[in-house]
């Protein structure tokens, strides 16, 4: 019995950090409407800075002073981020805000490694709290008791701050109606900055308080942010009480989940999250969001099917691409095949995101499922390649059917967070269920059939499947289903009113997109000859988003161009620099701030505005030819 009590108390102690970070995220979202992906990065920075400070400052005062000072220092960094970056994107679509803050996360990760090195750092123990309580023969660390108390204390302090100070009242008012608060003469610039500083302070404090419990390393950021997204989805974004209750719930589920499903403890959290979302899609303490800003909306240019010339040009480019084996080396062919595969992946996300208006932050889940599907069939069932390629993506299809059903109940940032959480669940299962998936060692030896085993033949196979996928998805865009999907994207209510079952349409689109992503994953497994958990990782999900964004969210063919440029660039970048994350993060941030329309979109606007007027007559042709490869 006492064992369970100790397990429960340990869960409560873990909840403290989760609550601090989640409440910070919620407070920031409440006012700025930005889901700050970089919140995990601030948590990690808090831990690193606290580590450095507590190493230098001595004594009890030095330790606690170091913890608090670390949170203050990181909050000041947050102020800089808010002033330099976020102020530029407050009016951008939420997808861009998520991406920009993710780019920031990437940069911080590389910077942390540069400054503190890649190894785990073990921090000082808290002076005076090194011991443990004896609880019926079980030891409870004294430090855990402190954390248990801290959670409710912070909750109370935040309540007082938001209800008993003018600043708090203004923040709550701004959470509801920013324009009205401005009309009443409140300068929100500083309100936003101070709210952001508070949120970052809480995250950094959460990180700093971890150093006596856990090693500090540069993967802390993504680990916590996924848990935090789960917490705010369960608790309700914007609610501090919700963040507290959900943080306790999730921590307890983790603490006891390990006892029930030792291998895949995250399953329990997933089940609870699913249950909450069915009963209360906006979380336990959340409120239904008013129809959020639409993801697209930068420029309204009607989409047109390809003209005959454009179709001929598409075939021409395809023929040229097919001629690559005559010129290129084997390495070029392997890169070419990889790019082709990522074109399928990007186009499938584009179908869901630009055509369907559903910006998924976890598209890699289906890519990974497709890859594992192939690996299972090839290695465990020993099926031939053709059967694997046809049946493997079915795993992605099933995943998309289940996850998609839940996801389409939500929209906007909730949708993004939920899809991310699902993807992380797929990743965790791949990572933790070692008996079946091989865990981190992956599944090796997934080789293509002899018929397509040479680089040239595999390249042709990939190119053919890619061309087919692009054509199929394009035809869908201009089919009655595509019209219904776009109608749902542009106005859910109106399309319901004309008799479109929008949830079903979106679900179908989700499943189609997931299946094509799985097809890409299946090919990728054969290209690499192996499958790893990272095939479903966050980094890959974000890659796909950046590809679509780079090409142009609002264009029909941008994803194709974006995938080619991005993939070529990143392969080149990885071979030239150690700091690929820093560069890539910087590119993402710049892209969002400077070129939100992407390559094809910018090109289109230049033509529309007359700057490239010599191309005007064939404007749609020009861009779409470019997008044809």
């Amino acid at each position, binding site marked *: 019995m006492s064992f369970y009590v100790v397990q429960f108390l340990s869960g409560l102690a873990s909840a403290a950090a989760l609550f601090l970070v989640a409440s910070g995220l919620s407070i920031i979202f409440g006012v700025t409407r930005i889901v700050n992906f970089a919140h995990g990065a601030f948590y990690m920075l808090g831990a690193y800075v606290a580590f450095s400070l507590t190493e230098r400052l001595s004594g009890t005062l030095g330790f606690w002073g170091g913890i608090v000072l670390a949170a203050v220092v990181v909050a000041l960094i947050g102020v800089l981020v808010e002033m330099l970056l976020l102020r530029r994107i407050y009016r951008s679509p939420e997808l861009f805000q998520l991406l920009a803050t993710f780019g920031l996360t990437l940069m911080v990760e590389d910077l942390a490694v540069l400054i503190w090195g890649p190894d785990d750092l073990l921090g000082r123990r808290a002076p005076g709290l090194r011991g443990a309580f004896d609880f019926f023969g079980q030891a409870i660390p004294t430090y855990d008791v402190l954390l248990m108390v801290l959670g409710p204390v912070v909750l109370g302090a935040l309540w007082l701050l938001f209800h008993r100070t003018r600043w708090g009242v203004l923040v*709550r008012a701004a959470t509801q109606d920013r324009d*009205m608060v401005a009309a009443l003469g409140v300068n929100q610039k500083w309100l936003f900055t101070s709210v952001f500083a508070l949120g970052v302070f809480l995250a950094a404090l959460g990180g700093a308080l971890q150093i006596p419990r856990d090693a500090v390393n540069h993967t802390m950021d993504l680990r916590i942010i996924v848990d935090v997204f789960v917490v705010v989805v369960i608790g309700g974004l914007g609610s501090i009480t919700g963040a507290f209750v959900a943080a306790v719930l999730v921590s307890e589920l983790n603490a006891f989940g390990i006892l029930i499903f030792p291998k895949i403890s995250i399953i329990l959290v997933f089940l609870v999250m699913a249950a909450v979302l069915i009963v209360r899609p906006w979380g336990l303490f959340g409120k239904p969001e008013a129809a959020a800003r639409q993801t697209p909306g930068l420029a309204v240019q009607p989409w047109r099917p390809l003209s005959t010339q454009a179709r001929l040009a598409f075939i021409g480019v395809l023929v040229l691409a097919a001629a690559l084996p005559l010129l290129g080396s084997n390495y070029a062919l392997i890169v070419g095949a990889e790019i082709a595969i990522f074109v399928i992946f990007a186009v499938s996300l584009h179908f869901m995101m630009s055509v369907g208006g559903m910006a998924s932050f976890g598209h890699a889940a289906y890519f990974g499922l497709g890859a594992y599907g192939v690996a299972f069939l090839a290695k465990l069932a020993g099926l031939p390649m053709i059967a694997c390629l046809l049946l493997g993506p079915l795993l992605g299809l099933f995943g998309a059917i289940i996850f998609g059903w839940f996801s389409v109940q939500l929209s906007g940032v909730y949708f993004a967070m939920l899809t991310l959480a699902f993807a992380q669940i797929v990743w965790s299962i791949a990572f933790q269920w070692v008996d079946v998936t091989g865990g981190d060692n992956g599944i090796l030896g997934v080789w293509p059939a002899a018929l397509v085993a040479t680089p040239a033949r595999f390249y042709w196979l990939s190119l053919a499947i890619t061309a087919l996928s692009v054509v199929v998805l394009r035809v869908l865009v201009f089919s009655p289903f595509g019209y219904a999907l776009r109608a749902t994207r542009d106005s859910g209510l109106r399309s319901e009113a004309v008799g479109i079952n929008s949830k079903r349409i979106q679900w179908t689109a989700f499943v189609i997109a997931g299946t094509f992503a799985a097809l890409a994953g299946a090919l990728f497994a054969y290209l690499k000859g192996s499958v790893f958990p990272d095939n479903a990782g966050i980094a890959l999900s974000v890659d796909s988003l950046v590809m679509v964004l780079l090409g142009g969210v609002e264009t029909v063919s941008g994803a194709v161009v974006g995938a080619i440029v991005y993939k070529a660039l990143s392969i080149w970048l990885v071979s030239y620099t150690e700091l690929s994350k820093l560069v890539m993060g910087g590119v993402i941030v710049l892209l969002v701030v400077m070129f939100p329309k992407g390559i094809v979109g910018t090109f289109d606007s230049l033509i529309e505005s007359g700057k490239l007027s010599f191309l005007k007559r064939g404007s749609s042709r020009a861009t779409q030819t470019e997008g044809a490869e």
Partner: protein
Amino acid sequence: MKLSVSALNSYYGPAHILFDVDLEVGAGEVVALLGRNGAGKSTTFRSLVGLVAHREGRITFEGHDISKAPTHAIGRAGLGYVPEERRIFTDLTVEENLEVGRQPARAGAPQWSREKLFTLFPNLAEMRHRAGGRMSGGEQQMLTIARTLMGNPSLVLLDEPSEGLSPKIVEQMAYAILTMKKEGLSILLSEQNLHFARLISDRSYIIERGRICFSGTMADLDARPDIRDAHLAM
């Protein structure tokens, strides 16, 4: 002139809404902007306080050009705005709503305090701690005006203050507006209800399809039934 607007043009995306709107409000004056639904009354007000992103023209308030100023600076300058939709902070109590509006006293403008406003709107005094979302439409209308007055403005824009209210509350509202006028506040209000406007206004403008098509005293308007019937027929 307290407020003068010349050649104001406003746009929502590609749609041109206001065309060369000119209007003026003198110190201590109550001016009515009359017009049908969709004529451009609310857009005019929203443009004046900088809530319409795309606007052109010259707006001077107490001699300062505010046509490019951000919304909060316009509020700070003493130009109060009471929106048609009321936009009460529903999660905040009555007192908290008033707190959001509070600003330091301003020279040359009437001073308001919470207690003084509770005398002006006695209903509010009885529900100081009630959440804004749990009040009737009339109570919310009083709260939204009181909230703006907490900023001690020298001019307020009242967007359709009588809309959707019961006759008894409309009467209270007219009395409150006259009290505000007596305190020396300048008021620009929009109305569809000519009877209500006549009760409290000195002058009026009529706006139709985004253009000002009449300007004069209330007596001038009464002398032109043709104009009244053409643009305000209810």
